[in-house]
């Protein structure tokens, strides 16, 4: 075995679900690296929080929409310098609007970040994990990628696409001991949902059998399972963590 650090890489790890996943994987014992785009001060806080608890973390400013930058990042920072044990594709954006009014740029940007970015990260990770004969990839999709959502045609298309990407990659890499799964969160309590009017939240809750919003930690626990020793025989799956809102 090499003495390179065993790294879990999380895209979009400075806030929301990505932050919870980053912190959880660090607590699980991985050296945890994550990417962020805006708010470097938030990224620094995440690193400091992990280090305080005795873990190791690094933050990288990297745009998931930039394929060249992603390839360069793997070449310069990871190849030969770390064993990439886990990749969590979490980075995502929304540009909501009804289909008839949706602008090309809003369609393109969401597909670029939420789907093409995941492809680019996976392609680079696959080269390393395939050689290692070991690795776990977890893609964060969404309940709306499974059931659709008015006003989010771009986001839902990207998230549904991610499920196809997950299953294909799972089949390709299975022979190398690499598992690829998706986690599909339902409505999760984040900055975004906390700003919604009470009525909107009430309306959401009527759709959720467990009658509450999920927590970022619920998603982190699912990722931890798929990335950890207990998840080794699971591949090509979509693990729904949605309070039962879609079955």
């Amino acid at each position, binding site marked *: 075995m090499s003495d390179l650090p065993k790294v879990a890489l999380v895209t979009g790890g400075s806030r929301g679900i990505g932050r919870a996943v980053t912190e959880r994987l660090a607590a699980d014992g991985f050296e945890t690296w994550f990417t962020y785009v805006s708010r470097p001060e938030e990224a620094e806080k995440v690193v400091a929080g992990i280090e305080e608890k005795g873990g190791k973390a690094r933050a990288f400013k990297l745009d998931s929409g930039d394929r060249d930058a992603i390839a360069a990042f793997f070449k310069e920072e990871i190849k030969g310098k770390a064993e990439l044990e886990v990749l969590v594709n979490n980075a995502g954006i929304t540009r909501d609007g009804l289909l008839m009014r949706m602008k090309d740029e809003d369609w393109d940007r969401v597909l670029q970040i939420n789907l093409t970015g995941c492809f680019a990260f996976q392609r680079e990770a696959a080269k390393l994990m*395939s*050689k290692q004969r070991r690795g776990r990839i977890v893609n964060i999709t969404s309940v709306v990628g499974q059931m659709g959502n008015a006003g989010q045609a771009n986001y839902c298309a990207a998230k549904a696409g991610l499920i196809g990407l997950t299953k294909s990659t799972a089949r*390709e890499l299975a*022979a190398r001991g690499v598992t690829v799964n998706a986690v599909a969160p339902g409505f999760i309590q984040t900055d975004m949902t906390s700003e919604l009017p009470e009525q909107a939240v009430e309306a959401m809750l009527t759709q959720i059998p467990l009658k509450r919003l999920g927590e970022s930690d619920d998603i982190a626990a699912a990722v931890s399972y798929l990335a950890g020793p207990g998840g080794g025989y699971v591949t090509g799956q979509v693990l729904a963590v949605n309070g039962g809102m879609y079955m």
Partner: protein
Amino acid sequence: MSDVASKVKDIIVDQLGVSADEVVEGAAFVEDLGADSLDLTELIMAMEEEFDLEIDDEQAQKILKVKDAIEFIEKNQ
């Protein structure tokens, strides 16, 4: 053995996990050396990296035996 040939054989040994004496020039990757499609892809990528060249898919499909790989690289380097 040429420099290219010995480097190519090293790559094959490394990628396919076979012993060096199995890697004769007439050996076919799939039939003789037990490579699957993923192995072949990785082999091509390793050669691209080592020799700093690009092997497109059409060309790659013609590289079936050890000697095909050596000849291709000697010609295109």
